[in-house]
């Protein structure tokens, strides 16, 4: 049924109306695709330097991107109705896998995050990053909005189960991202401001019990180190001191591509993964940072625009949540490397090396593209 509907000429989107034909038929949002391609190229250039001119690493990352673009393209072909129908089942699958991780997971450095399936290793939490907002959007889509308290509480329950499971792995970064993606759905659905205010009060009030009972020692250490990196210069503070030095010493103009001393001389830890923004800042200076933020901002604005233009509640909520989650990646990563936030394992989206986050993020953009090219739904 969906396929039939999608074959109909589109009249709802002015953007697409100007470019009928290939892009529309392929469910591609051209501005978004162009922005993502620019970001990909920029990221690979920085990665080449961040990985110490390891062409192999760049090629590997390009292959991940190839896979991720393919995934995005395929997801964009799926009708939103089908995505909506799948959402709760995918959610249940994800939660089951998270529970499986608790018992049969493998991991490193004291954290159990992966499931081993044959020769393939993956993080169920990555699935939830996409599926949780879809599930909440599915739940809210047919309800009258703004959501009532009951619905909000149900949503929090849907959100809370995977968030707590992931927090137990422990993976604070992912838990925060997933919780945020869910809360964004509620926020965009029009959850009353008094609830939002109340939630903020609750969060602030729960800070102390969180500190005492929930956070692990190493997580506390990260927060303490962030507040005062000098307290442990050679230990945990080392990363932050070195990344701040890298960023600061880049100045306005930067030291030049491949000329960053902090990263190339091994002072900067994780220079090709989570701390890659420090490489970019050191080598391209504040100019390079502004360029990156400009690209990000355009992507975000395009995402919001797609959401606003979407004809259905589900499409709107999903588009907005995917966009805001993308922003959380940006904010948390750039903030932690610059010493504003504690160090959690959040990559710089589409720039940090690593296949998983790229595939997940691009899958999100695939959904965004599906939303952008969906037809106004004819009420059934």
């Amino acid at each position, binding site marked *: 049924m969906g396929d039939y509907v999608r074959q109909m000429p589109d009249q709802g989107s002015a953007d697409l109306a100007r470019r009928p034909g290939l892009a529309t038929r392929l469910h591609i949002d051209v501005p978004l695709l162009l922005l993502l391609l620019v970001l990909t190229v920029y990221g690979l250039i920085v990665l080449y330097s961040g990985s110490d001119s390891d062409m192999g690493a760049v090629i590997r990352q390009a292959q991940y991107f190839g896979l991720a673009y393919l995934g995005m393209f395929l997801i964009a072909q799926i009708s939103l109705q089908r995505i909506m129908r799948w959402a709760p089942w995918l959610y249940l699958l994800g939660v089951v896998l998270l529970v499986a991780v608790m018992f049969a997971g493998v991991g490193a450095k004291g954290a159990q995050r992966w499931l081993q399936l044959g020769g393939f290793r993956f993080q169920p939490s990555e699935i939830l990053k996409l599926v949780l907002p879809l599930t909440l959007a599915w739940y809210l889509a047919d309800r*009258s909005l703004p959501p009532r308290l009951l619905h909000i509480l149900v949503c929090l329950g849907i959100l809370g189960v995977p968030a707590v499971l992931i927090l137990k792995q422990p993976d604070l970064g992912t838990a925060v991202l997933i919780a945020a993606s869910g809360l964004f759905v509620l926020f965009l659905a029009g959850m009353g401001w008094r609830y939002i205010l109340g939630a903020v009060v609750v969060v602030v009030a729960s800070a102390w019990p969180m500190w005492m009972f929930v956070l692990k020692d190493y997580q506390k250490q990260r927060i303490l180190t962030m507040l005062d990196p000098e307290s442990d210069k050679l230990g945990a503070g080392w990363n932050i001191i070195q990344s701040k030095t890298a960023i600061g010493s880049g100045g306005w103009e930067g030291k030049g591509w491949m000329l960053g001393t902090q990263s190339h001389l*091994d002072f900067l830890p994780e220079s090709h993964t989570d701390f890659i923004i420090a490489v970019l800042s050191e080598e391209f*200076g504040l100019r390079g*940072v502004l360029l990156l933020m400009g690209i990000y901002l355009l992507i975000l604005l395009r995402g919001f625009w797609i959401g*606003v233009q979407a004809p259905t509640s589900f499409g709107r909520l999903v588009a907005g949540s995917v966009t805001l989650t993308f922003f959380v990646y940006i*904010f948390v990563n750039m*903030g932690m490397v*610059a010493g504003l936030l504690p160090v959690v394992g959040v990559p710089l989206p589409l720039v940090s090396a690593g296949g998983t986050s790229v595939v997940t993020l691009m899958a999100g953009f695939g959904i965004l593209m599906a939303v952008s090219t969906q037809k106004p739904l004819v009420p059934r």
Partner: protein
Amino acid sequence: MARSIQLKDPHREARIYSARTVAAVLLVLGMLGIILARYYSLQVTEYETYRTQSERNRVQLQPLPPKRGLIFDRNGVLLADNRPSYMLSIVREQVADLDATLAELQQLLPISDSDIANFRKKLQRRRPYEAVPLRFRLTEAEQARLAVNRFRLPGVVVDAQLLRYYPHGELFSHALGYVGRINEREVLELDESDYRGTFHVGKVGVEKYYEDILHGDVGYQNVETNAHGRVLRVLERHDPVPGANLVLNLDIRIQRAATEALGERRGAVVAIDPRTGGVLALVSTPGFDTNLFVNGISSKDYSALRDSLDVPLFNRAIQGVYPPGSTIKPFMGMAGLESGLITPEYTVADPGWYSLPGDSHKYRDWILRIRGTGHAPRVDLNMAIAESCDTYFYDLARRLTIDRMYDYLRPFGFGERTGVDTTNERRGVLPSTRWKREAMAQPWYPGETISAGIGQGYMLASPMQLAVATSVMASKGQRRVPRLVHSINGEPVEAPVLDPIAAPDEYWQAIYAGMLEVVHGKRGTAKALAKDIQYQMAGKTGTAQVIGIAQGAVYREEDVAERHRHHGLFIAFAPAEAPTIAVAIIVENGGGSSAASPIARKVIDTWLLGETADG
């Protein structure tokens, strides 16, 4: 869906969504603004701070210690070499827990507590990124053990370093001196920048005297290092200037001949070329292996050297001062001739003793004990020197008086440092009334003049001083400051020339005649040396009393403990017609001059007739 109570209002929902999106965009812009402000503050406001920090991270200034100059003997035989040696150092900055690292290192290889104490002292004076040495001379096994464990020991570095090595350590111990690790006191005295990266300094002898020349100039390089302190590339380099090479006047053949001739006995030999002032040999026995000192001698070895009764660390050639005994007589003879109190023909009655007018004390001639009478009824200058007649010089001394004796002997270099280019030289004593008043706060007694005439009493001279005086004699009054160093980087070093002793040739000839008789005469005190001799040697024997002998008592060698026996002395120069070598020899407790004189023959034979050096 069926549970929905309210009807959905798509337009209202879209409106709400749009409003929330606007709020979200504002939130996003605000938070991106915060991020941007943070990057702006790091990259623009605090740019200088972080740029400096990143430079400091990356660039280290490393000293490049200069290569110490080599030292050769006059034949080109290498006496002081630099050989690579491996040392263990620690870069403080890169060590998280110094105590733990030290403890771990102690598990891996022997490191003494004094090594650690030394290390900690140095640590305070070096910058945190500089490598501070902890242990020297790692064996191959120790190096391997460190290499295996290196990944666990950040900041621990093994460096190759050139270390002084003395191929002929003991033979040249007192002539060359040695280098040793810079100690606390020296750290304060030495120029800090000059010695950055250098851990050794000349401690005594030529090594110390020529420290400035041997050391060279320190260089440095700015290097880029990674976070582990490994040098990645050199950004800027100023090469060090190696220290100058020294060629000494010393001749290993003579040095060896003298050392072998002294054998197990304690003594000293100094040989000088009177034409140049060059020191051909400087030997003091016993010697010691100077290599022991290069890297800090073990306390066991050190106490063995320090506590030995033979005091091997004592340089008898320049620090040892002895009564010159009868070796003073040729110089006394010159004083007599110059003062006009005697002529070569002047004679003195010799009953075997001498006494001052109005004094019953008998100053005995050594011959009295042997013959019961004097050398001859009347003794002239030639016989007085050849047979070492005391009576003649008692009389001369009385008439000359101590202060004029001082005036005439002083130009030969007695009583003042010769100024030889090494360290720790002592000046000895050339007595005078003024000296006694100042040094002992006592008046001079006439009897003391009598014994001063034969080199006994207060007079003290080092073998170096005796050799210099003999050299002045051999060159007929030409005075040169003795020099151990012949050339610096090929540039000859001229021995400083002092005002000569201007005396008529016949005076010198008169003394030479007497000194030749000592060796070649029938009744010469060293006539045994003349056997098979191929050149003319002028010499003078001497004996220095170690303990006083009571009036009327008889000194019998076999009755006296070995260390109370007389010192044997001998001075000589050759060939007499055109001298090229002047020597002074002392054999401590040798019993008499016959212990010393054969050494002179061996030394001079080696110089005049010897094979070329083999190294």
